[in-house]
């Protein structure tokens, strides 16, 4: 079990370092096992250096930087065992427009390379615009959900306002 954890750690760490730099368009990050000599008792610490800034632990980054770094870690774990489906529920909520853009580019890349189908729940207009298709969920009858297909061009951007 100890060897399996160390080998998983190395693989995830390698993916994490390159995903971080891709999502932040620069900078660097790495994982470290801390707090114990025995890996099975250790803690996983995350060090990140956004472009032009100093390296710090995850807890000292801004809200959006913490989110983008965590997305890099989640996909680093995903890439060690890529799945045919990936479901993301409002993961982009704290991200600004340029970070959302790079997040979407990563999804497109993973979808192509791993043949993964993504279900992306979002409130971000930019993310909606980058989808291959959109479904809207409405509750025109209170308490009862209905799924509708949404025309990406115009309706995508009106749906949230109309259904609300």
């Amino acid at each position, binding site marked *: 079990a100890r060897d399996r954890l160390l080998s998983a750690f190395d693989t995830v760490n390698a993916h994490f370092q390159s995903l971080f730099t891709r999502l932040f368009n620069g900078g660097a990050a790495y994982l470290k096992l801390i707090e114990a000599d025995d890996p099975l008792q250790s803690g*996983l610490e995350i060090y990140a250096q956004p472009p032009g800034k100093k390296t710090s632990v995850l807890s000292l980054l801004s809200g959006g930087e913490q989110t983008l770094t965590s997305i890099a870690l989640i996909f680093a774990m995903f890439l060690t065992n890529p799945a045919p489906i990936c*479901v993301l529920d409002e993961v982009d909520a704290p991200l600004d427009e340029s970070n959302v853009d790079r997040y979407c580019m990563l999804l497109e890349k993973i979808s192509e390379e791993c043949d993964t*189908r993504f279900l992306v729940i979002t409130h971000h207009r930019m993310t909606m615009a980058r989808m291959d298709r959109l479904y809207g969920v409405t509750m025109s009858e209170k308490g009862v959900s209905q799924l509708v297909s949404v025309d990406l061009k115009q309706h995508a951007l009106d749906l949230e306002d109309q259904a609300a």
Partner: protein
Amino acid sequence: VQFNRLRLTGFKSFVEHTELEIGKGLTGIIGPNGCGKSNIVEAIRWAMGENSPKRMRSSDMDDVIFAGTERRPARNTAEVTLLLDNSDRTAPAELNDSDELEISRKIERDVGSTYKVNGKNVRMRDVQLLFADSSVGAHSPALVSQGRVSDMINAKPTQRRMVLEEAA
């Protein structure tokens, strides 16, 4: 295996029969607060064999059955079906002899859940293993529920290490 379609009936706010086509690439799901988007995510976890009501925002597994509104009575059953394409024959041995796999979970109030694959009764364990073999499953990194990212940010280092172990 590849995921093609999701069907829900009576699952939480999706009382009516609902079909979601899971196409290639990126599919967006949008809508106002409280309209049912996260319920879709939970339906997928649930069909894969999620066993803990707490992870479904419930205290009891029966809570996933449509509980009724002012206008409609509560239901007694909920059913979620995942339709998989298995033409690459990557499914586990006992289920690997068909092009299509229809995995269904049904719950009956006060009775419990039953699982079927292509109409034949199976155990929950079989369904969980099927999905685990495809690197996807109720607890895999591939299903990121709402709030999971901020949980990770706030997690202690030892908790994070456990997440890594589970994903390995």
